[in-house]
């Protein structure tokens, strides 16, 4: 299965003809998406349009019944078949994911949340992973929280730890699923600031968000989904401009 031609050279993520059902309901309807190395793609669209599902197909948390997903030059899934577990696990280390609900490991200190992946999956030495972990905590502005338990952090702090946890695996790309939707408004900014930093460093990212100003500012390309389909795609100027297609405009009219 690995010998077939790659979907698109130079792309870090590509999906070809993705169809995904939950039961009888069509959730992803012929999704063709290519993300180049270093590109920041923002995914927007109404609730239930399949944004999370698409993102989760990109690291094998969900599997589409039809179509192909390739990330980092490897075929993750094909016609409903995922890679064998061990190869899948290895490939997943190269794609970081940040969830709406943080999902920090509740029984581990902040620093251990960050180092457990490098130690147990990448088999890094304890000191090295700790040094890297502290560096990352510093980067997300939480150097003083290394020994805190997740339960004692604010939402914004939790999400920044979650980002550091993903970065600790030194991923080639990052998938963000509504990273600020669960946050109080005054905490949104600190998380977006970290994502801006990553964009400036050239990280390849797909970001699902309802923060339209942020989308406009950070995206190289915005993709609009509706009922499982990609209905529009283009630069922020095109999507927010007057020549955007009617479905995009009606969606934006509701959220802006």
């Amino acid at each position, binding site marked *: 299965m690995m010998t077939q031609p790659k979907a698109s050279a130079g792309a870090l993520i590509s999906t070809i003809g993705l169809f995904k059902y939950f039961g009888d309901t069509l959730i992803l309807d012929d999704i063709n998406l290519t993300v180049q190395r270093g590109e920041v793609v923002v995914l927007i669209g109404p609730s239930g349009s399949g944004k999370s599902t698409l993102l989760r197909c990109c690291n094998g948390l969900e599997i589409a019944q039809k179509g192909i997903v390739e990330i980092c030059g490897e075929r993750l899934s094909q016609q409903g078949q995922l890679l064998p577990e061990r190869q899948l696990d290895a490939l997943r*280390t190269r*794609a970081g994911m940040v*969830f709406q609900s943080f999902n920090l490991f509740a029984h581990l200190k902040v620093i251990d949340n960050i180092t457990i992946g490098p130690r*147990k999956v990448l088999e890094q030495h304890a000191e090295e992973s700790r040094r890297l972990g502290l560096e990352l905590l510093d980067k997300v502005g939480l150097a003083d929280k290394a020994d805190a338990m997740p339960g004692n952090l604010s939402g914004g702090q939790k999400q920044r730890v*979650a980002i550091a946890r*993903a970065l600790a*695996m030194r991923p080639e790309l990052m998938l963000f699923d509504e990273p600020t939707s669960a946050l109080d408004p005054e905490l949104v900014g600190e998380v977006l600031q970290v994502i801006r930093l990553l964009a400036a460093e050239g990280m390849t990212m797909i970001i699902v968000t309802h923060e339209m100003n942020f989308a406009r500012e950070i995206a190289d390309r915005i993709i609009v989904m509706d009922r499982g389909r990609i209905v529009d795609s283009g630069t922020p100027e095109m999507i927010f401009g007057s020549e955007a297609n009617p479905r995009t405009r009606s969606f934006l009219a509701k959220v802006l």
Partner: protein
Amino acid sequence: MIDFDFSPVIENFGSLMHGTLITVEVVAVSMILSCTLGLLVGIGRLDTSRRLLYGICSFYVFIFRGTPLLVQLFIWYYGLPQFGISLPSFLCGVIGLGLYSASYVSEIVRGALQSVDKGQHEAARAIGMSRRVTMRLIIVPQAIVRIIPPLGNEFISLIKNSALISLVTIHDIMHEGQQIISVSYRSLEVYLAIGAVYLVLTWSVSRLLRTFENRLHTKGIQ
């Protein structure tokens, strides 16, 4: 006016203590069997898509939780010899108690594992952890805190249920007590003494587990 006479208890203190020791031995080995098997069966019932494993584990719980312990003990001790398999009575006691209790422990384990948020599992898989490592490092440690209180209840039941093993000729505290009664006719005093011994055992186990639980809490696990 009841006139108590504890002298048979005092005179036979040695044999009562010996019986207590046997009870503790059988119970301790049964607990290990019960926890190990209970953990495996509980995990086996997590994933309904693995049909065969799920079926076998569910059938196990159906049988061992659904029939009286006494019937199970008698089958191990009196039933199996019909197939030419005679197990020593100590082993019958351990197997009988252990397998019976494991069916309850498996339900405790399954409930606790399922109560850990699905997001924990997804976050672990997303950084490349295998199923097994996720279970060991992320899910089980969080489930343990929720397993301990009901497990304490199950251990207490196990201790009390162990009185039945005297019926498969194990010389436990119950058996020793009955021996003393058959000579002294001092039922009330002897049974009071036996009751006190069981109280000490159940109380010790619940203290032990509470201490363990507090240790986990002070480590910040909740």
